[in-house]
Every structure is written in C-alpha cells, then in structure tokens.
C-alpha cells in the first residue's frame, strides 16, 4: 500500500461540508500546506475541530478569514479577531469547549468510548443541555465524542508506512485527531524510510494514517 500522494491528490478526498479535525495549537503543529491547499481549492462549509482558530495569517485562522468554515468547535478564539467578528455577525457558528474536555471528547471518539465524565464546566454555562451524573457524591458532566470526516496532521518525522513522530510542542492535538477521523492525512516535515523511526518512539502508529503528503 503506497500512502504517499501529492497534495492535489490528497485534496480530492476533501469535500464541501465536511467535518475536518486539524492538529496544532495556535498554529504550532498545524499542516500549513494542507491548510493553504484547502483555501486554494475553495472548500466551503467546513465544520472545523481544532484547539483554537489561531491567527488571521496562521494555521486554521486563514480558513476563518477566507470563509471556508461554517462552524468551529474550539476552546479559544481570542487570538483571531476575525472569528469573533464573524460570530457576532452570525456568519460563523462557534462552539466553545473547554480545552481538556475537547481533548477527551476527541480521544473518546478515537477510542470507541460513548463519552466521559468530567468535573470541568460544572456550575458554568457549559452545563447547558448536558446530562449531569453523580459519582460518589460528586457531579460530573457527560461529554460526548467528537468525530471528524477528515483529520489533517503535521508530523515532524513520518516514515513511508505512516508512522509519525511529533517534535516537542507540536504533539498537542495531532495524536488525538489521528484517532478520530474516517480519513487521516499527514503532512510530513521530514519523510523517512520505513524503520528509521524507532518503533518505541512512534507517537502515531501507521495504521491510523491513510495519506502522506510532503
């Protein structure tokens, strides 16, 4: 199975209206080439799952500026004024999720869990419309899985089988998004031969990865 494709070939799998999970934290660890290709192709009505909407000129922030997205599911929009403005003008739907809850919801989808119970958000507006479950006298919110059609990842080192190594602070949501999408595309910063990443050091096993681009 050859997973290596051009960015153009990879983009054929991305359609208007899809739910797309993108790795990165304020743009660090985000696959910028794939992000740019989505803009270039003019994909519309994306529901974006990401930690944040980054900056207007960086990461998925560019999707907001270019109006590729109809909804964002993120923990933070404060660094991208365009997100707030489109939200206020009701051009963009924004679902704010506490960062730790977002990580667990994505992980739950990837791990086949029906949900997780978190104390985060109890006593806040995050409670609204959610089931509260008491365990041993303490209240928790039942938070449900979030799954994507496509995940776009940035790998620092990727082997030709699809094993990924994330350098330093680029791991963030990449390894989680990898597990929670129907189709997973990784943008390799450095592409190496199979076996060059020590099997003990692999952070996303190849079986999660469908397409590798450079």
């Amino acid at each position, binding site marked *: 199975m050859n997973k290596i494709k051009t960015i153009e070939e990879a983009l054929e799998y991305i359609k208007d209206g899809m739910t797309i999970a993108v790795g990165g934290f304020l743009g660090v660890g985000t696959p910028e080439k794939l992000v740019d290709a989505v803009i270039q192709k003019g994909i519309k009505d994306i529901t974006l799952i990401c930690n944040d909407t980054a*900056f207007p000129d960086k990461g998925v922030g560019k999707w907001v500026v270019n109006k590729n997205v109809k909804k964002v599911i993120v923990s933070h929009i404060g660094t991208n004024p365009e997100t707030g403005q489109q939200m206020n003008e009701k051009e963009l739907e924004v679902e704010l999720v*506490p960062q730790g809850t977002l990580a667990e919801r994505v992980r739950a989808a990837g791990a086949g869990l029906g949900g997780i119970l978190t104390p985060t958000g109890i006593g806040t507006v995050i409670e609204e419309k959610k089931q509260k479950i008491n365990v041993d006298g303490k209240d928790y919110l039942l938070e449900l899985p979030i799954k994507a059609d496509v995940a776009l990842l940035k790998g620092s080192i990727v082997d030709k089988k699809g094993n990924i190594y994330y350098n330093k602070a680029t791991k963030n949501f990449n390894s989680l998004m990898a597990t929670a999408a129907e189709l997973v595309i990784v943008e390799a910063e450095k592409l190496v031969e199979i076996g060059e990443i020590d099997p003990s050091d692999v952070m996303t096993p190849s079986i999660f990865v469908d397409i590798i681009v450079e």
Partner: protein
Amino acid sequence: MIQDKNRKREVIVKRIANELKDGDVVNLGIGMPTLVANYIPEGIDIMLHSENGFIGLGPSPKPGEEDKDIVNAGAQPATHIPGAAYFDSSMSFTIIRGGHLDVTVLGALQVDQHGNLANWMIPGKMVPGMGGAMDLVVGAKKVIVAMEHTAKGESKILEKCTLPLTAAREVDMIVTEMGVMLVTQDGLLLTEIAPETTLEEVIAATEAELKISEDLKVMEV
C-alpha cells in the same frame, strides 16, 4: 495605596512567587501571571506546566535562538529546562484535571466571596473562549487569582460574580496590589495588606464583605 502600574504588577507577582514551594508543579496564565516566573525564590525547584504540551517551561529564548517547535500556551517562543518532557493535549490535561498540578495562577475579570471566578467572556463584548482555564481552575490543587483590585474604579472582588463563570467555588487565594485574601467557608479573609495601603482603602475598593485576619500582616514584596 500603590498607584504605579508596574509597581502594582511587581507587588502581585512577587507575592505569588513567594507562595510557591519546592517541587511544586505550576501553571502560569497568560499575561501578568507569566511574570511570576521571574521572581521564583532561589533554591526552590519549580516545574512550570505549559498547557500546549510540556512540563519544564524555561525562560524566553534570546533573539535568533527561537525553536519553531517550542512555544508557550500564548504562542510566544519559549525554551525548556533540562529534564523537561513534551506530551500531547490529553496528557497535558491529565496533569491538570487529575490533580497533578499544585498551583495555577490566573487573571480574572471578576471573583467573588464564594470563590467563583469569571475570566473567559463578557457577553456581547468579548468572547475569547475558556481555553484551558476551566480545567485549570477545577483541576489544580491551589487556585490563585492574580489581578488588580479594581478596573476603571469598579471593584473586581464581588459578593457574587455577574459575568459567566469559569468555575464555581474553586478559587483559594486572591492576590492584588492591595492585599492577599483567602477564600474561606465564611467568605473572604484579608490576611495581608500591601505596603503604603490602609485597611480603609482595601475595604472601600472591595464590594464583597472582607473579614480581617486577627493576624493581619504586611505583604512581603
């Protein structure tokens, strides 16, 4: 009463730095809380947690020595100290939510006498989002609010928060340029007062009722 903006910040962050203990795992929020790192007492070993995915946050890099793969949770170039460890967001919040973080220091828009905190949105005006704050406040063993006592002349320490909460009843300590307040079962207890500040000034600047410690001290800063 301290008037100088920089001196206010210095008083707040120095006092909070003195609160940290050897071996503490600490998360410092964006903005003023970040400055606490500059005043950590000699001889104590603190591990700074950066919620974007590492423990062992170091000082800012020198210009030209930035590593694009190392930033702090505010996306500023950062460094790591020897013995640091990087991980994904799930482990980052396992540390936060699982009770493995000793102290979190955050700013606030409002805090009240029940320990409620509001710091993530002003409806209709500003909605940056909660980021990791809701998890930090719920998960950390000790929650310290670092902020100026008032904003545009209005008290930020209220009987009851009016803005949407970040978390309910989780704040342990409030440090401002006027003093140190502990959140107790019986409300707020003023335990320390800032230099150059009178008790009357603190009480006047505080909407919530303040109990005054019998052992009231002057902040050492």
